């Protein structure tokens, strides 16, 4: 495992927050996923040994909690809330617009590997529906027009970075 020094340091801080080491499992999964983008078997085993657990105790978390992923996916993640208040405001059309913009299907990654598009459940911002998260950033009232603007920004940024 090749984790950044600051990740290792944050891991030590997180472990010290609990009287029982196992409690640090979720924080460590978040930290490692933020560092390397996903949670391959090697990461799961590393976390297990850091906390004195069997790998299965960490696998069962990775396979249960929706935010953890074992596969890399796109460089950015677009999460469209699909629950009732967002659906009533047009979330299914918003999703379809993102699918069209990136030529990807719900749950999948665009052919250029740039974005993964997925539906998620209520993001607790139902008053400004439909809402979308692009990585850690929340976007509110995302109708099809706004979805196109967000997509254009992501594409422009991707061009700059490549």
């Amino acid at each position: 495992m090749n984790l950044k020094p600051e990740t290792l340091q944050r891991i030590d801080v997180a472990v010290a927050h609990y009287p029982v080491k196992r409690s640090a499992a979720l924080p460590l999964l978040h930290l490692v996923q933020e560092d390397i983008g996903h949670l391959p078997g090697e990461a799961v085993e590393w976390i297990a040994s850091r906390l004195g657990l069997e790998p299965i105790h960490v696998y069962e978390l990775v396979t249960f909690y929706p935010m953890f992923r074992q596969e890399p996916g796109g460089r950015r993640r677009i999460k469209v809330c699909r629950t009732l208040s967002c659906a009533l405001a047009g979330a299914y059309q918003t999703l379809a617009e993102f699918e069209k913009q990136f030529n990807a299907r719900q749950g999948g990654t665009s052919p250029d590997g740039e974005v993964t598009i997925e539906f998620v459940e209520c993001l607790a911002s139902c008053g400004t529906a439909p809402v979308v998260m692009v990585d850690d950033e929340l976007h509110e009232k995302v109708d099809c027009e706004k979805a196109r603007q967000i997509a254009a920004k992501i594409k422009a940024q991707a061009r700059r970075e490549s």
Partner: protein
Amino acid sequence: MPAERRIIFEHIDQPGYTPDLDCYVRHGGYAALRKAVACKPEDLVSEVKRSGLRGRGGAGFPCGVKWTLLDRRSGKPIYLIVNADESEPGTFKDRYIIHQDPHQLIEGIMITCFANTVKQAYIYIRGEFPEGAKILERAIAEARAAGLAGPNILGTGYSCEIYVHRGAGAYICGEETGLIESLEGKRPYPRIKPPYFPAVLGLYQCPTIVNNVETLCHVKHIVSMGGDAFARIGTPNNTGTRIFCVSGQVQRPGTYEFEVGKITMGQLLYEVCGGPLPGRKFKAVIPGGSSAKVLRFGEHYKGKRRAGAEMVDYDWALEDVPLDFDSLALVGSMGGSGGVIVMDDSASMVEALGNLNAFYAHESCGQCTPCREGSLWMKRITARMVSGEGRAEDGELLKSVADQIAGRTICAFGEACAWPTQSFVQKFAAEFRGYPEARKSAGPSAAPLV
């Protein structure tokens, strides 16, 4: 129309109000904590009991009573867990407290910890609030540096740490015993009560308080104004203010804080929120988060209810129902989390239920067969209807599945997933019966809900 009474949300969305300690202190922040640490802890608990404060997370359990249930004889450490999971669909108030006024929450937490001799508090925040988690961590560090949290608080010798713990996208982590399992680093499988009442066998098998973010903010104001003064706000047995989160098909969705029971559903939706969208009519409303039973416009409710010491008759249209825990229970639903989801005459009830059923099928933890299988079947039946393969008797089939879940499961998710189906099918029976035919002639919806 009753005026908003902003206590918790006093500074939310106020221009120039920032989430840092300086700003909070400039607005009178931490005076309640100073007052609290000069009191005896048991007096603070009595004050909160006298206030009549009921939990804002969903069940409406009296907060002070919950605290007195703590097992203090075990000699084990007592933990406080702040439920910041905010994952009940339709609920979006804790988000604004956390993002815009984190110190209000921290002050409420520290008072609660002092009152209950807690040495360690955890804020369990949903994984989808990464920014909120950072804001809270920053605010805790500020409070700690100023001697308002951490070691030797305000020079009293009392110490208590607060740590932020992020969830990872599972709704069931909002259920308090599922939350505890999650905080212990496991799958969030809810525990069986009894014996696992958090007040007795909670985090690490120690006595534990679990309270919602909004509930803990109220504690600060109870200490500021006194329990009796708080109890005079709102209505008897439904004291204080509460934040209504209005979403769905209405002119002005958003968060609104009113005295509990001093505003009716009609006033909230027509006057405060501006009524239906142009050319539409209200059709249905879910009053307390997606798990609460749906109410239909045009319904009437009649009976006797307690008003203070006496019993009085009530005869309400939906618009007349006062928004408080007891009245919403009387009309067969619940105040729940305060999430008010509005649907108008353009919405198909079959599709709306299909949307919710997809949510519950996705979020069941899978421990109990009736919940795991039942939520899946309800999703499949509504999905089949929406895809055009429905049958006229699907409504009854849905009901028969739902009726076999509630009361037969480990946690209240069983009720939460059965209630939408039971109420939608019962109150919109004709729409469910006619849907398969109508769907065949009309084709798929241009604005799908599922």
